C-alpha cells in the first residue's frame, strides 16, 4: 500500500478484471449489482404479472406456473438481498469510500478484497445456473423453511437447493472477508489526525453494517451447512421424521435475517447523513448521539428475531419479551431520524440531486418504520402475518434503503468515481418517476394485505375473496412495470455520462470530507506523495469563525 502502487502500467486484465485497487473493486461490485438487479427486477415483473393476470402468459417469458412462481419469488428475494442489496449498499460504497474517506491509499488486504468480489461473482453464477438444472431452482421462499427446503421428497428440487446454498455460502464468505477488510482498514490505515471522532458518518455506518453482519451470520452459516447435509447426505437436522427440528432453522435464519435488514439500512443512513450535511451546509446534529444510538440498535438487533416467528408455534409466552425488545429498537432509530430532521432545520438547503434522493429515502422509509409497529405487535400479527401487508412493509424498508439510499450515494459520488457528472435532468426524471411508481406499487399492497390477501400464492383467481382486489393488483403491477422501466433512464444516464458527461472538478459540492481532496477520479494509491493530514472533524459547515461555509478536513493537499 505504499507509493510504488501508483505509476506502474497495468494490463487490461490486472486493471479491470483481477484488480486489487479498492476503487476498481467497488466499481465491479456496482456493475455486478446492476446486472443482478436486472435479473431480480425481471423476476419482480413476473411475480407482479402473475398476481395481476393469473394464468395469462407473461410477455417475454410465458406462463408463470405455480412451480415457476414459487421459484421466482424465492430467487427474487435471494438475489435482491444478497446479490443486489449487499454489493450495491455494503460492498460498493465500503470499497470505494472507506479508504478515500479515512485518507488511506487502499484497503488493508487488497488481495482479500479481490477474492471477496470474485466469491460474490461465483455465488451469482451458481444462483443463475440453478435455473437450468434438473428439478429447477429452490422454491420454498427466500427464508427456505425446512422440511420443504431440506429434502427433494417435498419440493422435487435437488441440485437447485445445493446451488442455492452454495450461492449463499459464497455471499456470506465474501461479505465476511469484505467486512474484515473494512474494519482492519478503518482501524489501522487512517490518515494522520483522523481520530475516531473525526470519521465521517458514511464510514461509521459502513463499519456498523459490517459488524452487524459478522455477529449475526455465524449461526446461519452453521444452519446452512446443516441444511446442505440434509439435502445431500440425507441427515435429518431439520427433518422431524428423523428426529430433527424445523423450528431450529427459523431461529438460525431470523437471528441473521433481522440484523440483515440493518446491514442494508445502515449504509443508506450513513451516506444519507453525509449528503445531508453537504447540502444543508450544516453540521450533522448530534454526531455522538447518533453513533451511540447506532451501537444500541446493533446490540438490540440481536434480540428481536423472534418477532418474525410469532405464528410459528413458538411458545406464545415469548411474544411479550420479543415485543418489548422490538419496541425498544425503535427508540435508537427514532433518535437518528429526529437528528436528521434537526440537521435539516436551520439549514441553507441546496436542492441538488443527491439531496433529493436522500429525502426520497427518508420520506419512504418512514412508512416502512411506522408500518413495522403493526407487525411488531404480536396481536396484530395474528391477522397480518403472511399477508401482502408484510410484503408492502418490508419493501418500504428495503427499497428505500437499497434504491433511494443507494442512488443518493451513486449520484453524489459519481463525479468522484468517473471524473464526470451525471445528467441532472435525467437524474431528476429518474427520481420523480421512481418515487411515484414505487409508491404506486407498494401502497396498494397495504390495502390488499389488510383485506387478508396472503402472499406467495401464484393464482389469486382461485380465491373468490380476493377478486375484489383485482384492480388494486393490476394498478400495483402497472406501477411495478413502470418502476422497472424507469430504471432504464438511470442506465442510459450512466452509459452516457461515463464517457460524455461534463467534466467534474475535484470538489463539486464544496464538501469537507477527504475523498473530495483526491483527483476525480482518484489515481491508483489515491493521494500524491503525501497523505492528507486531518485537522478538523467532517462537518465544519457554516462555522461562524470561518470565512467560507465549509472547511476541508485536511489543509495540506
Amino acid at each position: 500500500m505504499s507509493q510504488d502502487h501508483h505509476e506502474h502500467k497495468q494490463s487490461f486484465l490486472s486493471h479491470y478484471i483481477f484488480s486489487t485497487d479498492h476503487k476498481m473493486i467497488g466499481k465491479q461490485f456496482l456493475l455486478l449489482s446492476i446486472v443482478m438487479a436486472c435479473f431480480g427486477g425481471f423476476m419482480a415483473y413476473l411475480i407482479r404479472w402473475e398476481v395481476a393476470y393469473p394464468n395469462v402468459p407473461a410477455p417475454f417469458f410465458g406462463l408463470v406456473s405455480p412451480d415457476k412462481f414459487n421459484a421466482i419469488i424465492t430467487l427474487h428475494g435471494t438475489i435482491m438481498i444478497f446479490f443486489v442489496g449487499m454489493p450495491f449498499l455494503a460492498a460498493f460504497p465500503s470499497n470505494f469510500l472507506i479508504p478515500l474517506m479515512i485518507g488511506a491509499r487502499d484497503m488493508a488486504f487488497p488481495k482479500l478484497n479481490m477474492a471477496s468480489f470474485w466469491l460474490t461473482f461465483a455465488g451469482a453464477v451458481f444462483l443463475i445456473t440453478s435455473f437450468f438444472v434438473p428439478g429447477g431452482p429452490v422454491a420454498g421462499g427466500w427464508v427456505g423453511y425446512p422440511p420443504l427446503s431440506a429434502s427433494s421428497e417435498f419440493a422435487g428440487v435437488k441440485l437447485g437447493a445445493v446451488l442455492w446454498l452454495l450461492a449463499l455460502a459464497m455471499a456470506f464468505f465474501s461479505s465476511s472477508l469484505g467486512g474484515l477488510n473494512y474494519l482492519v482498514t478503518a482501524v489501522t490505515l487512517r490518515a494522520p489526525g483522523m481520530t475516531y471522532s473525526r470519521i465521517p458518518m458514511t464510514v461509521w455506518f459502513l463499519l456498523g453494517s459490517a459488524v452487524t453482519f459478522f455477529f449475526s451470520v455465524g449461526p446461519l452459516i452453521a444452519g446452512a451447512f446443516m441444511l446442505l447435509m440434509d439435502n445431500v447426505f440425507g441427515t435429518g437436522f431439520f427433518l422431524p421424521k428423523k428426529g430433527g427440528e424445523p423450528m431450529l432453522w427459523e431461529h438460525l435464519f431470523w437471528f441473521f435475517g433481522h440484523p440483515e435488514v440493518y446491514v442494508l439500512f445502515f449504509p443508506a443512513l450513513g451516506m444519507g447523513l453525509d449528503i445531508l450535511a453537504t447540502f444543508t451546509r450544516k453540521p450533522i446534529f448530534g454526531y455522538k448521539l447518533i453513533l451511540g444510538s447506532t451501537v444500541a440498535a446493533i446490540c438490540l438487533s440481536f434480540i428481536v428475531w423472534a418477532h418474525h416467528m410469532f405464528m410459528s408455534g413458538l411458545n406464545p409466552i415469548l411474544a411479550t419479551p420479543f415485543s418489548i425488545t422490538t419496541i425498544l429498537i425503535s427508540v435508537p432509530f427514532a433518535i437518528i431520524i429526529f437528528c436528521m430532521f434537526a440537521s435539516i432545520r436551520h439549514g441553507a438547503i441546496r436542492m441538488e440531486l443527491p439531496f433529493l434522493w436522500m429525502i426520497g429515502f427518508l420520506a419512504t422509509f418512514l412508512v416502512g418504520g411506522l408500518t413495522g409497529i403493526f407487525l411488531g405487535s404480536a396481536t396484530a400479527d395474528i391477522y397480518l402475518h403472511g399477508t401482502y401487508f408484510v410484503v408492502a412493509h418490508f419493501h418500504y424498508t428495503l427499497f428505500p434503503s437499497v434504491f433511494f439510499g443507494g442512488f443518493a450515494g451513486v449520484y453524489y459520488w459519481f463525479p468522484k468515481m468517473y471524473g464526470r457528472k451525471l445528467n441532472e435532468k435525467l437524474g431528476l426524471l429518474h427520481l420523480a418517476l421512481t418515487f411515484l411508481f414505487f409508491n404506486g406499487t407498494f401502497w396498494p399492497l397495504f390495502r390488499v394485505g389488510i383485506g387478508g390477501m396472503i402472499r406467495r400464492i401464484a393464482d389469486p383467481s382461485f380465491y373468490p375473496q380476493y377478486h375484489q382486489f383485482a384492480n388494486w393488483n393490476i394498478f400495483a403491477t402497472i406501477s411495478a412495470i413502470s418502476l422497472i422501466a424507469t430504471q432504464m433512464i438511470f442506465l442510459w444516464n450512466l452509459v452516457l455520462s461515463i464517457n460524455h458527461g461534463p467534466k467534474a472538478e475535484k470538489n463539486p459540492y464544496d464538501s469537507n470530507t477527504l475523498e473530495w481532496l483526491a483527483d476525480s477520479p482518484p489515481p491508483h494509491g489515491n493521494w500524491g506523495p503525501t497523505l492528507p493530514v486531518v485537522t478538523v472533524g467532517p462537518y465544519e459547515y457554516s462555522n461562524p469563525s470561518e470565512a467560507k461555509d465549509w472547511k476541508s478536513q485536511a489543509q495540506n493537499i
Partner: protein
Amino acid sequence: MLDALPQAISSFAQNIDDVLKLIYYITGFFFILMEGYLVYLLVRYRRKDGVAAKYEPGDKWVHVQWIVIFCVIITGIDFFIDFKGAKTWDRVKIEMPATDLTVKVQAKQFDWTFFYPGKDGQIGTDDDISSYRELHVPVGKKIKIIMTSLDVIHDFFLPEVRLKQDVMPQREILGWFDTTQAGTFHLVCDEICGFGHTRMAGVLQVDDEKTFEDWLASKDKEEHGGAQ
C-alpha cells in the same frame, strides 16, 4: 384503509381489529406529522441569498434533550400499544378456555383434513369422523383445535375469525376459536408449502347446532356405514 378488513366473526376478532385500529390511528397521526414536518423543513430552509445555515453540532445535552424527550414519549405510546394488545394475545394464544368441541386439523401437501370425535368422544380412534377441506363448526360454540402436519410447515389461517397458526410437522399445536354468526367463510394455507400451495384452500362452514349435528351424523354414516 381498514375498511378492507373482512367481516369479523369470532368473539376476539373485534379485539384484534381494535388493536389494528389503535395502531392505525397512532401511526397515521405520526405519518402526517412527520411527512408534513419534512415538507415544511424543505420549503422553509431552502437556500436564500444572504442567509447562512446555523452552526448546530448538537453535541450538548441541552441541544439534544428535546429529541430524547420526544423519543421517550414515542416509547410510551409503543408500550401502550403492546399493553393494549397483550390482553388479546393472551386470550387468543395462551389461555385455553373450556371448549365445547375438539377438532383435529391435519395438514398435508396440499390439503386439509379435519377429524371429529366419534361416539367415544375421543380423537385418534377408529370411529373418528373426517371431513376433507371443509371445517364445519356449530355457531357460538368454543372449538378446540389440535393442529398437525404430515409433511412440511403449513399455516392455518381463518381470516374472518382472525386466527392464524403455523402447523408444524410431527407436532401438535393447540388453539381455539369461536364464531358469532353462521355462514360460509374462508380457510387458507398461509405458509408456502410446495407447488400446490396456491390451491391449498378450504372452507369454514359455520352452522346452527342442528344443521351441524345433522351434517356430522351424515358424515359418520358415510364413513362408518352407520353400523354403530
